[in-house]
């Protein structure tokens, strides 16, 4: 059963050093607010999971929160590289970053398997690629009926799954709509979950691709209007493309990044 809580309180209660943490979102509904709170609370040794680690993961990696990244596409969408991610992988700064790398299809299947309570998922994937040579979490599996060989991938079951959504109702049920990514799978596969929302309403309306997560699948609901910024919440805000572009020069330079980090920790900027 979800509890309404402040974000700082929810992160303190549910995110611990060494945890496997997913702050998911496929361009849309990414809880930057929660990512920044994790940085502020100084969490360490996290295994971060996300299909599309973008700027907020770049920030968490640069801040030294992560020891490992499970991912399928690590870029700044429409802009270019994630330089803090690259600095960690290429130069071990601020600390080395272990990676568990997949394709989108493979990582989506790992999320599905996690939500479905299965130890593994199956896909037509990775054939002939180098990923299968370097990633230990890809294994061949034969169809028991046809003999055909496919790829198996292990389920994802993070300690904490964190998403942003548009609305909660007063009972703590959550609704999101528009591009839904793997938001549902992230919450359902994780042992604990935090959802930041734009607003609280009396009841939900039908929406295109409306996804409702019942209160009892969520641990904490935090009302954080604009908590997805610079990503967006459909029908509430627009994606702040300038922020993504402005991140590029900051992230390219360790000093510029550290200045940003100091300001963010002090609550000057986010």
């Amino acid at each position, binding site marked *: 059963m979800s509890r309404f809580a402040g974000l700082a309180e929810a992160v303190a209660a549910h995110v611990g050093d060494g945890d496997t943490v997913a702050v998911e979102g*496929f*361009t*849309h509904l990414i809880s930057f607010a929660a990512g920044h709170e994790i940085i502020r609370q100084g969490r360490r040794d996290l295994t971060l999971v996300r*299909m*599309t680690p973008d700027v907020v993961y770049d920030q968490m990696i640069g801040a030294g929160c992560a020891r490992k990244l499970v*991912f*399928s*596409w*690590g*870029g700044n*969408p*429409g802009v270019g*590289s*994630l330089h803090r*991610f*690259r600095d960690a*992988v*290429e130069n071990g700064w601020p600390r080395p970053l272990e990676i568990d*790398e*997949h*394709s*989108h*299809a493979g990582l*989506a*299947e790992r*999320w*599905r398997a996690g939500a479905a309570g299965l130890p593994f998922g199956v*896909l*037509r*994937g*990775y*054939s*002939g*690629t*180098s*990923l299968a040579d*370097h990633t230990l979490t890809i294994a061949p599996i034969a169809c028991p009926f046809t003999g*055909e060989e496919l790829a198996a991938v292990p389920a994802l079951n993070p300690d904490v799954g964190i998403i942003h959504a548009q609305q909660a109702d007063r009972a703590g049920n959550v609704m999101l709509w*528009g*591009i*839904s*990514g*793997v938001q*549902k*799978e992230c919450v359902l596969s994780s042992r604990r979950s935090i959802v930041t929302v734009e607003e609280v309403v009396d009841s939900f309306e039908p929406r*295109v*691709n409306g*996804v409702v997560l019942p209160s009892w699948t969520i641990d904490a609901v935090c009302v954080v209007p604009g908590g997805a910024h610079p990503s*967006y919440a*459909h029908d509430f805000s*627009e*994606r702040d*493309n300038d922020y993504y572009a402005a991140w590029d020069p900051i992230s390219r330079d360790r000093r510029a990044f550290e200045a940003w980090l100091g300001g963010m920790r002090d609550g000057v900027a986010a």
Partner: protein
Amino acid sequence: MTAANGWTADEMMTVAAARALPDRAVCFVGIGLPSSAANLARRMHAPDAVLIYESGCIGAKPGTLPSSIGDGVLSDTADAVIGVPEIFAYWLQGGRIDVGFLGAAQIDRFANINTTVIGGYQAPKVRLPGAGGAPEIAANCGEVVITLRHGRRSLVEEIDFITSLGHGDGGDHRERLRLRGRGPGTVITDLGVLQPDPETKELTLTSVHPGVEAADVAAETGWDLRVAPDLDVTPPPSDEELSVLRELQG
């Protein structure tokens, strides 16, 4: 680089990619040039092409070009919006996509694609964003169209990492792996068009863009480039293609 009559090499590349999309084709679209090309095609010869974005938007009809794969304009204009596990499982893996557009940091002569690392995987010189949807787009779409800028560092003798399989070692390699899609059928660069030899699957220059010589292309290619005996010249962007593309890119 601007050609005499006012179009850039990037515009030529986008227009050529748009022309590669047949009407009514179901097309898996990435952000950037593929999205520009697919939306240009919809406004020209392919009004009934179906654009699918990996964020779960099926039949998106954006009025302006999205700046990311997950822009609201895609879900607002789509016939259906679904979750990401479903788009990869039921739609891409389900064999429903005719044409997949892919970009690349590097390709080799068999159109294998690297978007993962330059240098070694464990200690990379340059860490690139990685696979995204590409490996399974390359495997499962009916056909793949690759776009990238020509250069000896992008069309290379040997790629450092096979992110997405093109024609593997050539010949019937894809059939031996039982891949269901036919693989890359067209590579469009800012200099010309390359297509796999029907037998060996080695990329062959089949068309040069206006003002480009085959020798120019060979000089910018990291392997000994084969040139088709009946080499075409790509028709330049028409006035209509150019004006529609520029309006799209606003």
